[in-house]
């Protein structure tokens, strides 16, 4: 007993030690035992042997490490790589299949990671950008719980008294026409208080920013250019400083050029002008500005909110003359809802991005499983060779080195190709990605992306090398017997591949469910009735300079003349002008005053106000539900048309027709307009909005109201019977006939606007569809590969069965049954995982719950059918075997 155990324990010694002295030691120990030693003789011997073994192994490892430093290890590695490369070249099918799979999956993962990192993870490109907050508000009393902007009165209060704000600025954006520098062009400008540079901590690359007191009326008007407009319009000329330019025909002096890449608040802003810092004479109403601030040291979003809420309570005492301040508090329940700038910028897409990243991560796992499977198949084909090598003294380590060398080459090549795929994909995305995707221009392959790519490749190489090693390695004799007989299905081996098949099926289920849910969201979205018919409709913006169109009346006259000309153009069937078209976002809003209702009652909900020419409703195909819309002759009559949502909010129990209303809280003056009709709701911000906003339309030519609605900056809505963009040149010519200094801006089709506003969903759907289809393909190929390999290995067994009278149907059944277990397990696991994964998708889905039964059922059936087909083909082949040739195949 003692001696046998001792012999076993000798196995613990390093191999060369054991080979050299093992026999002698056994003999020695036995001889000493015969001398009759102490009672615990063997125990002592065992313990000492274990200690020696550990010491010697430690020494051997240290020595090896030292040798590697000298470079021998590297030479060994290079030799292994060279051999591996030769082996890979000799197996082109395996190599190409692996490389394709790896490069696609790695490429997709790297590309999406690049997007996620640059858009969601990276801080915004401003110094200490984590301290930047947007000063937004909520007016829960009138149904707006968040996202309400700021008034100049509030801003002045915050800027002077909020201790949690280090600095703050207020701004407004809008288009202006630049003339005198090449063709007239419409530019997006931001009017901002001079504090913006301090808040964002940026300085012009050239020249200077606005002085603290800039923007006062009567002072010289100054402008700061973006890098882009400086390059495209001024040929990067440094002498641009001091030059006068015309914006809406008003002269401005260029005082600075911002650094490349700076764009605030939106990427399309190209020019900044100064907005005077509001003083204490500012009025508290009119949420017409956006506010941004920088948190002071130690302040948090919560402390900022507390601070601002306290200041809001002081509003009525600071502006005692304004009854409106009181009502904002009492009726509107005004409160501060500051949000981090980053949250507002990327928050809307962050969830989608993470889901996409998880998806490509799953696809990568699937690809890894597939290539691992190919490795397994190959390793089995090489069992005999490997067993011989082992018998000849190649250690387990040598075999591992071979696998590692192969997987290293494949992962490195796959990673390089994947990187190329990712570079191509991200530049494609930058050029053609959805416009509403924030920070798209910042997406690229940087060090952080490369680092992750390298980690993925290393991980992949290790994983692929380890999988074939996990198999039990039978002794030479056994392997050769197996190889000779080729009829055993080899339990452990089949089980390992069963697990792989199940994993592939499960991953495919998760991806397909994600894709299915997204597709259903998309279908749901495209079936929505937006309240208008976008087909064949062209929209563009036109801005009339106030210098030449000083009054609303002159602007309206111009629009009427132009509409007449456009209406006469070939292909144009209807033309109209509106102050704010559907999907253009939040129009001018104010509560509505109703004749006969007390002015000091609770403030009614905010209503979107639009000015439109009479033809607007017909042009967009907006249905009239009650009453009528304006007649052509009524463009200057005090009438109003309201939408269904407004009726629900203002006249739930009354007949809206004949009611008299006017914009603004009741104490604002203005003549009453009579409601003549009710139209259906139309989408305001996006086609995916879930509730309609109350809206009212006044005739464009009704110029009595001095509201914030401009008749100079309007949207033209034109319906054409020919492709809408085709009539654009004729329209442009018609515009220039009337006024050669005007610029058409943002010309697009309404269909395009509809698509853009649903881009978040369709973009996610397309990417998920690509991932899911890849998964489906990889899964099917994987199943087919495993089953057909099993069939090949069992050829002779099947031959015997057939020769003994088994019916082909039974053979098919036998083969199929074998795969069914793994596939079933994969299906169940996948469905459960998809349910868990689905919870993260809820926020990006639209009109479909993440537990949508139909999608799950469809995916399960689809995969079951596909798996059956993937098993059926090799099973049929097996059943069709000729018993004699099958047996001869030995």
């Amino acid at each position, binding site marked *: 007993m003692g001696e046998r155990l001792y012999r076993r324990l000798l196995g613990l010694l390093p191999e060369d030690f054991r080979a050299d002295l093992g026999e002698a*030691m056994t003999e020695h120990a036995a001889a000493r035992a015969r001398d009759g030693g102490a009672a615990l003789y063997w125990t002592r011997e065992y313990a000492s042997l274990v200690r020696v073994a550990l010491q010697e192994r430690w020494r051997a490892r240290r020595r090896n490490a030292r040798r590697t430093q000298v470079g021998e290890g590297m030479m060994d590695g290079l030799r292994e790589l060279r051999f591996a490369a030769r082996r890979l070249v000799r197996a082109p099918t395996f190599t190409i299949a692996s490389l394709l799979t790896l490069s696609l999956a790695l490429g997709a993962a790297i590309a999406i990671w690049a997007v996620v990192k640059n858009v969601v993870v990276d801080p915004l490109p401003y110094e200490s950008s984590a301290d930047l907050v947007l000063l937004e508000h909520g007016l829960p009393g009138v149904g707006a719980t968040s996202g309400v902007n700021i008034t100049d009165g509030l801003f002045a209060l915050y800027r002077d008294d909020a201790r949690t704000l280090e600095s703050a600025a207020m701004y407004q954006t809008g288009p202006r026409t630049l003339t005198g520098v090449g063709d007239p062009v419409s530019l997006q400008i931001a009017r901002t208080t001079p504090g913006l540079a301090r808040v964002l901590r940026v300085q012009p690359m050239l020249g200077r920013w606005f002085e603290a007191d800039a923007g006062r009326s009567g002072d010289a008007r100054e402008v700061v250019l973006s890098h882009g407009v400086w390059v495209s319009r001024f040929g990067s000329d440094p002498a641009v400083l001091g030059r006068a330019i015309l914006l809406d025909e008003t002269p401005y002096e260029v005082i600075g050029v911002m650094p490349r890449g700076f764009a605030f608040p939106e990427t399309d802003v190209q020019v900044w002008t100064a907005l005077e810092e509001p003083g204490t004479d500012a009025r508290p109403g009119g949420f017409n500005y956006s506010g941004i601030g920088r948190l002071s040291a130690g302040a948090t979003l919560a402390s900022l909110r507390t601070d601002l809420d306290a200041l809001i309570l002081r509003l009525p005492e600071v502006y005692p003359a304004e009854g409106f301040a009181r009502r904002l508090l009492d009726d509107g329940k005004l409160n501060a809802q500051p949000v981090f700038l980053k949250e507002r910028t990327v928050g809307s897409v962050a969830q989608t991005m993470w889901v996409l990243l998880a998806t490509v991560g799953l696809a990568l796992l699937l690809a890894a499983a597939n290539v691992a499977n190919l490795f397994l198949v190959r390793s089995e084909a090489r069992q005999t060779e490997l067993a011989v090598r082992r018998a000849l003294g190649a250690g387990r380590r040598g075999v591992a080195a071979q696998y590692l060398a192969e997987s290293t080459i494949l992962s490195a090549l796959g990673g390089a190709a994947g990187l190329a795929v990712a570079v191509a994909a991200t530049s494609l995305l930058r050029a053609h990605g959805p416009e509403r995707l924030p920070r798209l221009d910042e997406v690229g392959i940087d060090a952080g992306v490369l680092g992750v790519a390298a980690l993925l490749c290393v991980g992949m190489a290790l994983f692929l090398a380890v999988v074939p090693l996990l198999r039990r390695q039978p002794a030479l004799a056994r392997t050769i017997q197996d190889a000779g007989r080729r009829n055993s299905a080899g339990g452990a081996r089949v089980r390992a591949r069963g697990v792989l098949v199940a994993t592939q099926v499960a991953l495919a289920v998760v991806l397909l469910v994600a894709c299915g849910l997204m597709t259903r969201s998309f279908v749901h979205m495209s079936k929505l009735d937006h309240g208008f018919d976008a087909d064949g409709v062209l929209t563009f913006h036109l801005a009339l300079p106030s210098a030449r169109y000083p009054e609303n009346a002159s602007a309206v006259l111009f629009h009427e003349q132009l509409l007449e000309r456009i209406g006469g153009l070939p292909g144009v069937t209807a033309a109209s002008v509106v102050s704010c078209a559907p999907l253009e976002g939040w129009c001018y809003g104010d509560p509505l005053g109703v004749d006969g209702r007390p002015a000091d009652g609770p403030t009614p909900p905010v209503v979107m106000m639009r000015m439109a020419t009479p033809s607007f409703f017909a042009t967009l195909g907006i249905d009239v539900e009650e009453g009528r819309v304006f007649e052509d002759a009524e463009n200057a009559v005090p009438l109003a048309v309201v939408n269904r949502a407004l009726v629900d909010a203002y006249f739930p129990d009354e007949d809206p027709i004949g009611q008299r209303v006017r914009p603004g809280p009741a104490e604002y003056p203005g003549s009453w307009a009579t409601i003549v009709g009710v139209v259906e709701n139309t989408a305001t911000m996006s086609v995916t909005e879930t509730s309609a906003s109350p809206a009212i339309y006044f005739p464009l030519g009704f110029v009595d109201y001095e509201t914030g609605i401009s008749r100079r900056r309007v949207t033209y809505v034109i319906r054409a019977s020919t492709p809408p963009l085709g009539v654009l040149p004729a329209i442009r010519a018609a515009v220039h006939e009337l006024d050669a200094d005007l610029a058409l801006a943002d010309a697009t089709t309404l269909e395009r606007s509809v698509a853009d506003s649903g881009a978040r969903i369709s973009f996610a759907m397309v990417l998920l569809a690509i991932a899911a289809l890849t998964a489906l393909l990889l899964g099917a190929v994987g199943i087919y590969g495993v089953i057909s390999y099993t069939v090949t290995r069992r050829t002779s067994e099947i031959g015997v069965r057939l020769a003994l009278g088994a019916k082909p149907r039974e053979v098919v059944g036998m083969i199929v049954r074998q795969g069914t277990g793994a596939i079933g397990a994969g299906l169940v696991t996948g469905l459960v995982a998809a349910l868990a994964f689905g919870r993260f998708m809820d926020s990006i889905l639209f009109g479909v719950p993440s537990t949508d039964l139909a999608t799950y059922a469809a995916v399960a059936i689809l995969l079951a059918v596909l798996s059956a087909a993937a098993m059926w083909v090799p099973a049929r082949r097996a059943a069709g075997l000729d018993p004699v040739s099958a047996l001869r195949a030995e």
Partner: protein
Amino acid sequence: MPDAAPPLGDLAYLTLVALGDGPAHGYAIGKEIEARSDGRLDPTTGALYQALRRLAEAGLVAPAAAPRGETDGRRKYFRITAPGRRAAAAEAERLEGLVAAARAKRLYPT
């Protein structure tokens, strides 16, 4: 490749000493060590062969052919090499120095 020669351990020293008379196999070496140390040292098989292997790696002992009378093929014989002799002498000298120091202080009888 002998490492920078540190003082030999008792076991290694006595192993070299045991081989002083000529080649011997492990069992004989073990017995000799036990006798020389008055039973103070009775190395286990593992410890003894570890010492032998390290001495061999250091070039102080070398495998030797079994003598003609040997019947058990499993036994392995070792002999001391010239560097081994020098190492043993150096160790003995070191030990003598240590003893001399004690004598000089009359801590140990002459």
